[in-house]
């Protein structure tokens, strides 16, 4: 950090800064009267841009005009039929006709009158062709963008058995439409802004007016506005720029590619940030409890969901502590192991040359490497890797005398446990924290494990996500809010929203009480 500051103060300029400065001179230039001059300016801005098309034509045989668009971003077929055809075929054109009246002649739903050269560039870059007419100080931008997009698919990282199978895509408009189809009420607001000097990425802040607290909306907007970056390629860029504690291993902004998850967060009074170019949307604020809530919890019946949620809590601890507890007990507290088990472990460990800690490290690191390799490798190689991986952390490792069979078991259960966390980001942070706790357990035994847990809990207590305590509803304890933490309350009892996000408005009530179903009593 300091290093860069020093360089800057000495007057050093990054090359990118120089370019942006030449571009930043443009906004002052309004559209000139002379068409040629305008085109000259634009052409100089788009030097060496082979994909920009300047199509000059005449309206009513006399008035010169130009159509400017980026090839591949606009629907040329529609432009030909709905824009060029009517204009070119005009027999007479009064040069005094205002640009607004010209735009009314166009059979296109989305038409915008623009005033400056920067606006022209902006419109072209998002795929809207622009028409400039000689002797006019305004231009027309035509909303006919079209580019290749991916179809809506089942989200791969967050698949469910029961629940909608649609996921967000890379196109912002499709994503907003997916949200709007779930929440039709006009209270769903979508504020748009642009971030990134070069990418000019469109970012939308979505929230439900009247549920989300105003301070939260303001805070999210502020933090987004503060960002000065040259490009946003994925929501991860923004996530890191708006976090509360950048050094925390825990994610403080949720990300999802499921419209139903985003919609349910909106209904709980959270803010959803949609970013063009990525299927992953951000949800703020995020609490620790929400990392352990899977979308399917809310679609299955509540008894099953509660059971699965508890299973998840149990395996959360296994994922975090199993190897360290094994190491601690086996190197410091052998008397804690049931006799028969200790004898079996002693048998299997007899020919292992490494201490338990090293053994655990070998296996855990191998497992992490295999997991990473499994994701990165092309599909054709993937099968081979999984076979080799099974051998490496399986029977072969035991027979080779590198690790004991008990350790294989521990690593395997830990590996499975970490994938029980529905949020991939949370799973990663747990897997990462496992290693320092393992070292502590190797040095101090169970005492070290406890120290590690205490450190994590203290850390969790200190961090906040957009003003909401990370352990909200557990610490500070809000018994009422535990209805969606300890259990998953049935929908007829989920009568209030989480307090953290919507308390300010006093708008906690989600639905009326007394909706518990049952057979109708008496009567016909």
């Amino acid at each position: 950090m300091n290093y860069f500051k020093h360089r800057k103060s000495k007057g050093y300029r990054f090359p990118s800064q120089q370019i942006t400065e030449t571009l930043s001179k443009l906004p002052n230039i309004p559209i000139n009267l002379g068409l040629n001059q305008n085109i000259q300016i634009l052409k100089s801005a788009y030097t060496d841009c082979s994909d920009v098309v300047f199509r000059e034509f005449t309206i009513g045989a006399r008035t010169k005009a130009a159509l400017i668009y980026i090839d591949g971003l606009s629907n040329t077929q529609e432009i030909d039929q709905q824009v060029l055809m009517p204009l070119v075929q005009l027999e007479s054109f009064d040069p005094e006709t205002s640009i607004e009246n010209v735009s009314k002649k166009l059979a296109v739903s989305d038409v915008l009158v623009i005033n400056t050269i920067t606006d022209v560039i902006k419109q072209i870059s998002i795929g809207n062709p622009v028409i400039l007419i000689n002797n006019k100080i305004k231009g027309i931008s035509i909303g006919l963008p079209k580019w290749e997009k991916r179809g809506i698919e089942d989200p791969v990282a967050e698949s469910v058995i029961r629940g909608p199978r649609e996921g967000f895509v890379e196109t912002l408009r499709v994503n907003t439409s997916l949200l709007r189809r779930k929440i039709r009420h006009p209270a769903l607001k979508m504020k748009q802004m642009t971030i990134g000097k070069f990418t000019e990425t469109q970012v939308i802040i979505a929230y439900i007016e009247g549920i989300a607290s105003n301070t939260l909306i303001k805070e999210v907007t502020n933090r987004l506005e503060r960002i000065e970056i040259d490009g946003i390629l994925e929501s991860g860029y923004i996530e890191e720029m708006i976090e509360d504690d950048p050094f925390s291993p825990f994610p403080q902004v949720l990300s999802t590619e499921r419209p139903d998850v985003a919609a349910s967060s909106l209904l709980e009074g959270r803010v959803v940030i949609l970013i063009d170019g990525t299927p992953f949307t951000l949800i703020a604020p995020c609490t620790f409890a929400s990392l352990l809530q899977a979308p399917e919890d809310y679609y299955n019946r509540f008894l099953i969901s509660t059971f699965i949620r508890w299973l998840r809590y149990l395996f959360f601890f296994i994922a975090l502590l199993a190897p360290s507890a094994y190491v601690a007990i086996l190197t410091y507290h052998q008397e804690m192991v049931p006799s028969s088990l200790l004898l079996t472990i002693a048998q299997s460990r007899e020919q292992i040359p490494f201490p338990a800690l090293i053994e655990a490290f070998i296996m855990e690191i191998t497992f992490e490497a295999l997991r990473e390799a499994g994701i990165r490798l092309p599909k054709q190689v993937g099968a081979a890797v999984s076979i080799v991986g099974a051998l490496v952390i399986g029977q072969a490792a035991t027979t080779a005398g590198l690790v004991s069979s008990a350790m294989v078991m521990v690593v395997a259960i830990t590996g499975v446990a970490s994938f029980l966390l529905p949020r991939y980001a949370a799973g990663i942070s747990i897997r990462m924290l496992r290693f320092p706790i393992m070292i502590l357990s190797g040095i101090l035994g169970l005492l070290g494990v406890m120290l590690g847990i205490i450190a994590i809990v203290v850390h969790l207590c200190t961090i906040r996500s957009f003003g909401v305590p990370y352990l909200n509803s557990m610490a500070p304890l809000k018994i009422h809010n535990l209805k969606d933490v300890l259990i998953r309350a049935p929908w007829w009892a989920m009568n209030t929203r989480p307090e953290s996000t919507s308390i300010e408005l006093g708008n906690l009530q989600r639905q009326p009480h007394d909706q518990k179903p049952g057979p109708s009593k008496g009567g016909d």
Partner: protein
Amino acid sequence: MMGFFRRRKKKYISLVLLLCLIILLLAGCWDRTEVNDLAIILATGVDQSKKEEIELSVQVFIPKPAESGQQEGVSSGNNSSQTLVRSAKGVTIADAMSRLQEKLTRRIFWGQNEVLIIGEKLAEKGIGDHIDFWMGHTEPRERADVFVSMDSAKEVLESMPELERDSAKQLRKLVDSQIGVKVTVKSLSEMLTGDAGAAVIPWVAKMSPSNLAVNKGKNIPFIKGAAVLRGDKMVGRLSDKETRGILWPRNEAKSGIITISLKDEKAFVSLNLLRSHNQLIPKISNGNWSIKVKTDADLEVIQNTTSLNLLNLKSSKKLKRMVVQVIEERERLALSKAQKKMNADIFGFAAAFQRDYPGTWKKKKNEWSEIFRKVDVTFETKVNIRRTGLSNEKAKKGGRER
């Protein structure tokens, strides 16, 4: 410039904090032991050696890795090399242990020691000093089971049971079945230091193995009655039957089968004990110390070879009376031996008197061994027969006529 200093200071503080953390970690590792470096002791035996010395024998587990897992089922019969027994002599157990350590490559680990066997000779000489090691050392389990063996304890450790992995497991499983007394180091030490000053410890005898041709000379330990200690010295033995008798007043009779023979018929009724509760009710009047052993037991009939129809109220009452008789007879048998012969209060009478008459007890505490002899014991036994089973009288009669 100020900012620079502040930054230096901040750096300095974080460095100190980091050092503090590292210092914390430096305290670790001192007692780290891998399982590979442990001699896991499964059972311990203490014998009287010549002169004033004792002999400490330990059964150490040999962690031989399983043979590639394929022929485990076949080789499990031959478990002769799963454990080894080593012994060393010394004036105290701790002394013997240090000598023993010289003979073992791995550190002696008491944490899994679940069985302590005391040789008869040592038991007769007194065990109080040796039990102290088990209570004082941090590693041994206080919940280890204690036994007194007929032969030397070492011999018991060396024996090879057929069904279980080793003799330690064999003995432990036997006492867990709740048919005899179960005494742990902790309860033994409580019994010895308590006011009664007496204890019972399961008695280990040996039986010959089932397959003599293969396992010749290998004896199998089993439990046969109990040894009775007064003070910390063994004063006598109770047979199996007498041991059962002392379980009732001690409120330890929780399971078992009682078989009753009818006088007028050569046939038997066997009853299974479901639940029992015993209470000692002490009473001191005019200097006469007496105690009432109150027993409340639930039983079920599991076999009936007699002509008695148990659904009949009359015969059921008769059976109840006889069960009461049998239980009281057993109690009397044990009592007479312990009270009159050995003068060892193994029933917890002392504690009962102390609870109900704390004042008198304080004064008479020192005369207890005299008083105990004269305590008048009465019995009040209540028996419920919960289930009589299906009465198949006719089938039996038919069978007999044929």
